[in-house]
């Protein structure tokens, strides 16, 4: 049996300000994920760290432990690899006052 694999676009042109996150995504069938976050436009303000989060139910979220720097320029891309995440996944960050970025976030699962 060929291994299952998929790419999911979980944020497409979403504008992030303040506390922001991708929509909950279920990936319980997968054992590993690579997540890319790309800035589609020049971000404004200081770009903070972002966090991968896990959830028991898609509604309550906890840090998975992986953090990364949000891209600070147009077409900048951040990438993380994770495994052992259960089912629900999302990326969350908290942009400071006045900061804004337009993102494309993709999750690559297998």
């Amino acid at each position, binding site marked *: 049996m060929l291994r299952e694999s998929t790419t*999911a676009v979980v944020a497409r042109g979403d504008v992030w300000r303040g506390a922001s996150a991708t929509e909950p995504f279920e990936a319980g069938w997968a054992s590993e994920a690579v997540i890319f976050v790309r800035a589609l436009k020049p971000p404004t303000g200081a770009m903070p760290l972002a966090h991968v989060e896990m959830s028991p139910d898609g509604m309550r979220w906890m840090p998975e432990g992986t953090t990364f720097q949000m891209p600070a320029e147009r077409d900048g891309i951040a990438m993380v690899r994770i495994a052992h995440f259960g089912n629900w996944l999302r990326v969350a960050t908290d942009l400071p006052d006045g900061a804004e970025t337009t993102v494309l976030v993709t999750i690559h699962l297998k």
Partner: protein
Amino acid sequence: MADGPRHGMTAALDTKPVSAPRPLIATEIGLDRFDPLSRIISYDDFNRGTCGWTQLIGNYEGSLDAMLPGFRPITSPMLSTLGHWDTGSHGGMTGSYAMKLATRPFDDAITVALKRLTARKAGPIRLEFYMTFKPEANELMLSQSDVKAIGFLLDLQGGSAGGQRVMPHLRYLNASGGSLQEKWQFKRGFPDFSDIGEAKETVSHFHLGEDGWEDLSGASQQLCYNEIPTKVNWHYVRFDFDLATMTATHFQCNDRVFDLSAFDSIRIPAMKNLWCMLNVCMFVETAADNRAFLYLDSVCLSGDF
């Protein structure tokens, strides 16, 4: 059994060569819960992945910002075990997984997933699927009126110049304005198009807005919502359409067959690059600031050829 031929079971009854039964292992692969026409165009059991279903995107040129606003909140479908905080994974009808469409958490949000095909023959086709829907169970409440609607549409175009692009739409309007509606609706007419981008090579229309929905004749139907947001029950839906005449011939949900005498589709002059298009779309809409979920256990599209 419905009126369509059953694979491997109706050879003596079938006198049309184009409808000759084809050998299938229906029981093993789950097709026996459907009543397909003689040719299986696609059978999507979401225990085998997303089977070619993807998220809808609006047309754009140069920038995603050129996309019409109605398309922007659309999200990606995913494989789900229907996991609930209080009971764990509900699972699908016959396996662990279903395909889940999940909206964003605001009122009047919509998401759409689709499968893009083309037609081999302008003749009868049959869409069948097993589905269920629920709001996100983030309150210890029934939340029965949080999902506005679930529905489906075909996006079709004939194979030669002079034809039409035809888009039959049906939705189950579950609730609006905090009140249960529980009725089936359709949409027809000629939509407004917008130019997309400066090159004027692309147009777009958002055909899933709130405007234009009309009640089917005898539209009311109460479905099995069950008693709390984390209990779900699967429902059967069947829609027959004739690609030769571009008319709907049968619509059924569970035990109800609906009168289609007043049904019609959105009809548009044929577009320059959509010949023989056969797209199948599913959607779910919210009626509250709460995510709405449409789950599809399996989808079977068949044709008479």
